[in-house]
């Protein structure tokens, strides 16, 4: 490149001279490059200082994953508290409760000091059943969520990144799985494997139910992840990684996957909700893991024991309430993660608040340019 160092600012772009003058009010056209460079570094320095000041605290706090963490909001805190409480109950409850299948109690006792949540028709302690059932449901939810996440991630990300024939094949499989109605298939598979020989103790275990739920529920997240991976694939940093000589596997796992983390987390949580509800549905129909206790098997017992008819509300309300609370709590966390993926959502409540305030203050909001 040449040493001609008298290029002026107005000549550097296709801009009108007026535009140049606006950005550099203190410089005449034809200012030498030395001044130009000095001004640029000053500009960048101030810009950096501002940015650094704003983010210094943030960097100190969290390191590289901070940008991926959801902001602390009412939704997130409420969701975490609910899910945390249920998880703690599932982990610690069984330690303090009596054995769940101990029938040496009076039958159908209402809640009282002796049995906090009463007893069932067979004399089982409901509190104990609930604690073990919560643990069982959470286990199924986690395993099924993980299985769905891994399958959805593999199908979605690989299809999205590689494109072409691989995409066609993987998307075809995904679409087929997607349109198969979920619960009926799960019922058929569950009914089949329960009677299948050769599975031994696995046949009626909660692990098997979790696997069945997992491998029938990954297609939705595969579709979402494929779309996002396709979009990330065309980003210039992926092209830059290819130019640097990175291998495809490394590009997928190091360059693309971290940027999918919020989405993966959301899909995982969604998978857990789906599996907990699916298990409850299956168990209610009598196709659940009969060997272990889950919230679904409790509901099934209550149904077959005619809890509603005998007015034993303490038998079916607690498991139902825990399922509902778990679903709600996980959904709230999911909403908070959504705000990481889609920052527009983050602004919505604040804008609504501002709008309400403005209306209260008697100002027109039409021209203040509220969130549209």
């Amino acid at each position: 490149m040449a040493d001609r160092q008298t290029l002026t600012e107005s000549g550097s772009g296709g801009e009108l001279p007026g535009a140049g003058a606006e950005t550099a009010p203190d410089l005449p056209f034809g200012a030498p490059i030395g001044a130009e460079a000095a001004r640029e570094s000053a500009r960048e320095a101030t810009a950096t200082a501002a940015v650094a000041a704003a983010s210094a605290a943030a960097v100190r706090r969290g390191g590289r994953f901070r940008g991926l963490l959801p902001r602390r909001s009412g939704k997130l805190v409420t969701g975490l508290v609910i899910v945390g409480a249920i998880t703690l109950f599932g982990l610690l409850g069984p330690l303090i409760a009596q054995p769940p299948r101990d029938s040496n109690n009076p039958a159908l006792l209402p809640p009282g000091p002796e049995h906090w949540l009463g007893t069932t028709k067979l004399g089982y302690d409901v509190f104990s059943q609930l604690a073990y059932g919560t643990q069982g449901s959470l286990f199924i939810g986690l395993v099924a969520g993980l299985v769905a996440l891994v399958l959805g991630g593999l199908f979605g990300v690989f299809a999205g990144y590689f494109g072409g024939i691989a995409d066609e094949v993987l998307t075809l499989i995904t679409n087929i799985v997607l349109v198969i109605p979920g619960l009926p298939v799960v019922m058929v598979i569950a009914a089949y494997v329960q009677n299948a020989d050769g599975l031994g103790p696995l046949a009626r275990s909660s692990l098997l139910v979790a696997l069945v739920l997992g491998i029938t529920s990954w297609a939705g997240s595969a579709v979402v992840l494929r779309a996002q991976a396709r979009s990330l694939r065309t980003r210039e940093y992926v092209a830059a990684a290819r130019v640097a000589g990175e291998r495809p596997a490394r590009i997928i796992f190091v360059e693309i996957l971290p940027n999918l983390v919020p989405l993966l987390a959301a899909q995982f949580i969604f998978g857990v909700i789906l599996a907990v509800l699916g298990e409850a549905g299956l168990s209610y129909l009598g196709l659940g893991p009969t060997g272990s206790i889950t919230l679904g098997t409790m509901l099934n017992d209550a149904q077959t024991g005619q809890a509603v008819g005998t007015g034993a509300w303490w038998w079916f309300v607690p498991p139902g309430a825990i399922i509902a609370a778990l679903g709600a709590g996980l959904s709230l966390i999911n909403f908070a993660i959504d705000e990481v993926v889609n920052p527009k959502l983050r602004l919505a409540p604040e804008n609504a608040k501002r709008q309400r305030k403005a209306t209260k203050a008697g100002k027109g909001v039409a021209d203040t340019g509220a969130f549209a």
Partner: protein
Amino acid sequence: MTAQVTRPAVEAGSLRAEGLEKDFRLRSGLKVRTLHAVRGVSLELEPGRTVALVGESGSGKSTIARMFAKLESPTGGRILLDGAPSANRGRGLAAYRRDVQMVFQDPFGSLNPFHSIVHHLERPIRLHHPGLSGAEVRERAEELLERVRLSPAAKFADRRPHELSGGQRQRVAIARALAPGARFIIADEPVSMLDVSIRLGVLNLLAELQRQERLGVLYITHDLATARHFSDEILVMYRGEIVERGPSERVILDPQHDYTKTLLDAAADPDRLGQLRDEVRREAG
């Protein structure tokens, strides 16, 4: 191909495109249309020289850049590095990438928001110099940051891209292109997304590194003014073909092809705009 370019003494090594072609097949429903993005383009990069490729949007400039960077494979013609056809896979491709690197247009898109600045420099160093220890790689990465005037390097190294300004990001992108030890840099509109006021700083940096390292640079731009000031030779591209080529001054001051003249007329020139304004005022008054 209007004028024979007189060259200074040729140094060893060159990056040459011969009759490069690229067709894209566009499918809309059942119809398949072929778009000839690049038709028979030949050009040569030599160490220590900057060649500018100018043309409007959609003229095929970026496709040429992507073919040089091996992000697209040409449908015709070939790319020769030091006289030998370049490889498209395996070790040959790795060797090619060590020599030929690219600076992308969008400094906001070309750095991964998840990774630190130093990651973007350490990866290419590691890939192309596998023998180095972790500390040596880090040291080299910080050296590169200093060379693109991001100092103190230690401070910038662990930042994330969103904490840097556009100009600073583009400096990182330039450092990344230098990281493998490249001899040829393909700069695809490196400053078009930057603020007008910081474009010159980035271009001056690129020019300085080019002089120090004797790099061969392909400077792709739609801006004739910077093409004239920063390059030795200008190629004008229109609809996939090179319609005019020659020494920078000659192309700008004495354009031969109609399209080049149109481009020059379209470029803003403060003096001429002043005249125009006066004329308009005179007529109005």
